[in-house]
């Protein structure tokens, strides 16, 4: 590319961007400016189609990230904690009322809850679960 054509390109591109050289070649300015108007009209038309990057698409992205396990690792999963608590309560209740099962699962015991919690009332567990879930909803 020659120096002259480089200058011409630069001049044309500047005029296209809305900064024509007043002392430059009027033919170049005229062409670039008329193309600029055509491109502006085209852009105006396209811009009506462009969605706004508001909270909607953002929430969808966050939802998808959480669904794919990209959520904050530091934040405890209160929902999972509540579900685990209910499951453990139900398991404990069943264990205490079923001697056969008690024998079968004796070797599988290991969690803190299995050893320490010996409440036998399902009503009590339902109450605990309701409190945990209420805290979870309040926090999330």
């Amino acid at each position: 590319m020659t120096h002259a054509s480089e200058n011409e390109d630069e001049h044309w591109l500047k005029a296209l961007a809305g900064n024509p050289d007043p002392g430059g070649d009027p033919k170049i300015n005229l062409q670039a400016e008329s193309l600029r108007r055509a491109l502006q009209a085209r852009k105006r038309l396209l811009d009506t189609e462009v969605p706004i990057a508001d909270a909607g698409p953002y929430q969808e992205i966050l939802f998808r990230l959480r669904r794919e396990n990209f959520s904050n690792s530091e934040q405890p999963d209160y929902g999972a904690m509540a579900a685990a608590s209910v499951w453990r309560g139900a398991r404990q209740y069943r264990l205490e009322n079923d001697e056969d099962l008690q024998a079968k699962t004796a070797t599988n015991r290991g969690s803190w809850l299995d050893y320490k919690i010996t409440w036998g009332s399902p009503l009590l567990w339902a109450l605990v679960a309701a409190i945990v879930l209420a805290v979870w909803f309040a926090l999330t």
Partner: protein
Amino acid sequence: MDAGVKALYKTAAQPMLAFFVYKGISADESKDVLQETFIKIVRGASTFSGDGAAKAWIWQIARNCLIDHQRKKGSVAINETAVNDDHWEALEQTTADPNASSCVPIGSIDECVSAGLDAFNRLEPERAFVLMLQMDGLSIEEIGLRIGRTMAATKEYLSQCKKKVQPFIAHCTELLVS
């Protein structure tokens, strides 16, 4: 992580949505591609080597997601390499001929240029897109990010775009200037 995603969304989401729509996909599809882009950015963040600018890496993901989407839809834009130099010579001879274009009634320079731009866009959507970015006042660097080229290559590409669009619009202003 949420804070990082929020910060990125604030700066990059709107230009990306515009980029996708300008490249020919619908508003709804552009949201889907944006979502896919963000998922890939977060997924790939741990593997990002840090070589090169993060901005370039992010835009590369956006471009790839758009191409994937267009492939799935079977609507990949016309491959520019399909038009070789010989083909261009032939095109220039036909489209640059003022008599050839005079069969279309054109009321003003603006209408003539607009018709020329439409024809150019049908044949070379990528180049028309780049000219629009230049018209919009984006820096060479920003244009380069969107088309995946270095600054020097982007400058050269812009010069080529100017050359390629000339046959479509030159006849509109030639008579007036002379």
